[in-house]
């Protein structure tokens, strides 16, 4: 990492830390972080391994259900509930990946989409998801049994700065986001990440060099599924609900759009893309089906004229 990049990351981190005190609405910031992590996890596949998974909502949404169930029915602490969501998503990722890596390219996308639709139908019928109602009133509980994330007047920080429970929850989400982001960053710049990139660039060549391509793809898939699950679990805790929307194919499409808009194969692109889309949805919430239309138009414009995405385009301009 060169000096300029370090400074950029430092500024971004500082921005994330002070965001709730300079007008950022904590619930909005949390949801942006969750989707940013989701998109980063997705980007690990599309951007760095060349696999288009069109069913990532199944990991996001199922982890939300797992986590919500653990927190609400079993009464576990939030960090354990998130862990259960993540582990559940990883296990699903292993199963789905094991099936899906048998096919390449466009078939891989169709297989993952079909499997996620199957998961969706199971969620519609299964008793523990609450079907149309979803899981409501998921409690946030006390992190590590100590820090209350919900509904108590906290002592002001340093005796002067007022802190709401949402702000404490925001830092909980931020900490786990940074953990997930760090894992992805580390994976990309490791020898493992280099092998993934070689698969993206030229799969037969990677195979002929002796790499077990399917095994690497599966590992990347499980890692991506687990982190997508972590994002979903965090979302369930911060919003206090898990619903069918989280497992639907529309959600899978949204994460593709976030990554595409931000820049596939860039580190920060998905974060920016996710924030942009969430902001857009926030402002357009009153327009009903127009949100869908605008997202569709964004898709078309990105694919036709803007394939590098925002961050990819900036990086390209800077390099020239």
């Amino acid at each position, binding site marked *: 990492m060169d000096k300029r990049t370090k400074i950029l990351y430092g500024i971004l981190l500082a921005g994330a830390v002070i965001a709730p005190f300079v007008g950022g609405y904590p619930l909005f910031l949390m949801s942006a972080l969750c989707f940013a992590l989701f998109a980063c996890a997705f980007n690990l596949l599309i951007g760095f391994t060349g696999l288009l998974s069109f069913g990532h909502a199944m990991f996001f949404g199922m982890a939300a259900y797992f986590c919500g169930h653990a927190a609400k029915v079993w009464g576990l602490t939030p960090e354990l509930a998130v862990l259960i969501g993540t582990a559940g998503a990883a296990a699903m990722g292993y199963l789905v990946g094991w099936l899906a890596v*048998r096919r390449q390219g466009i078939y891989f996308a169709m297989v993952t989409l079909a499997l996620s639709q199957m998961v969706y139908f199971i969620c519609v019928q299964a008793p523990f998801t609450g079907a149309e109602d979803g899981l409501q009133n998921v409690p946030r509980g006390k992190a590590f049994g100590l820090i209350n994330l919900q509904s108590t007047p906290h002592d002001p920080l340093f005796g002067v700065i007022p802190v709401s429970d949402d702000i404490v929850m925001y830092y909980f989400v931020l900490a786990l986001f940074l953990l997930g982001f760090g894992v992805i960053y580390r994976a990309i710049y490791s020898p493992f990440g280099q092998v993934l990139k070689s698969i993206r660039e030229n799969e037969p060549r990677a195979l002929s060099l002796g790499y077990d391509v399917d095994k690497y793809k599966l590992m990347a898939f499980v890692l991506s599924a687990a982190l997508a699950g972590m994002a979903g679990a965090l979302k369930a805790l911060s919003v206090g609900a898990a619903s069918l929307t989280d497992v639907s194919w529309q959600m899978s499409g949204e994460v593709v759009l976030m990554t595409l808009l931000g820049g596939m194969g860039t580190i920060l692109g998905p974060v920016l893309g996710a924030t942009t889309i969430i902001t857009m949805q926030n402002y357009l919430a009153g327009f*009903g089906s127009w949100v869908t239309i605008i997202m569709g138009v964004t898709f078309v414009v990105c694919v036709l004229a803007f394939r590098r995405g925002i961050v990819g385009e900036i990086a390209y301009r800077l390099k020239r």
Partner: protein
Amino acid sequence: MTEIFGVPTQALMGQLMIGLVNGSFYAMLSLGLAVIFGMLNVVNFAHGAFYMMGAFFSWMLLNYFGVNYWWSLLLAPLGVAIVGIIIEKTMLRWLYQLDHLYGLLLTFGLALIIEGIFRDQYGVSGQPYDLPELFKGAFDLGFMMLPKYRAWVIVACLSICFATWFVIERTRLGSYLRAGTENPKLVQAFGINVPLMVTLTYAFGVGLAGLAGVLAAPVYQVNPLMGSNIVIVVFAVVVIGGMGSILGAIVTGLALGLIEGLTKVFYPEASATVVFIIMAIVLLIRPAGLFGREK
């Protein structure tokens, strides 16, 4: 009343019939997807949206212009095909040199736009499409009642599928198409207008989806969401059958419709998921699909 495996024959046959109707739609849609993929290398995610558009066009023709069912069987698919031509000429054209996934992403965006527009206009509740007089009532086959319209849908779909197969596999035009699928550059060198052929292929494929939509309009309610519900199942059908073969797409579509119908009788809870489960099993046993070729 006679029973088979403890299920009344009447109910079993009825569900099989519905299964066959669904299977006919799967067959027509996966056929169109396969033809488009063969020629354009694009997985047309908007296929479901075009199916919905066909159904809506025929509903609009009837309710706004008083055009009857028979004319809309011709006009609605034509309208859908024209929309397809515009999309191919203005957008898809630019993506053929790129990775296949961009075609999927573009058509996904288009599907969102089309669905969004119809949802904005008509909401999410279905619009009923009245059966034409001719098809009201049912045939009494002795062991079951066969609704006339369902019989018509199955006959029509099978004839259209057979005609498509015949044109592609047995005529000169079809031989150009197959050659274009194998090696477009060489076909172009022989003096055949490949870009025009590509455009017409796309128009034909989506027109087929539109026609399926018109046929489906009286069976289901005309609903903006009907397309995205079916397209994912059709994707699974395509993965099961493999996109290499026309006949394969037709047979797989019909067979899966029947299996879905049977599941509804014997284990209704699994009827929504059975196609996907079969897909998973096929991936385990024959990763290239039942009729597919390993590349």
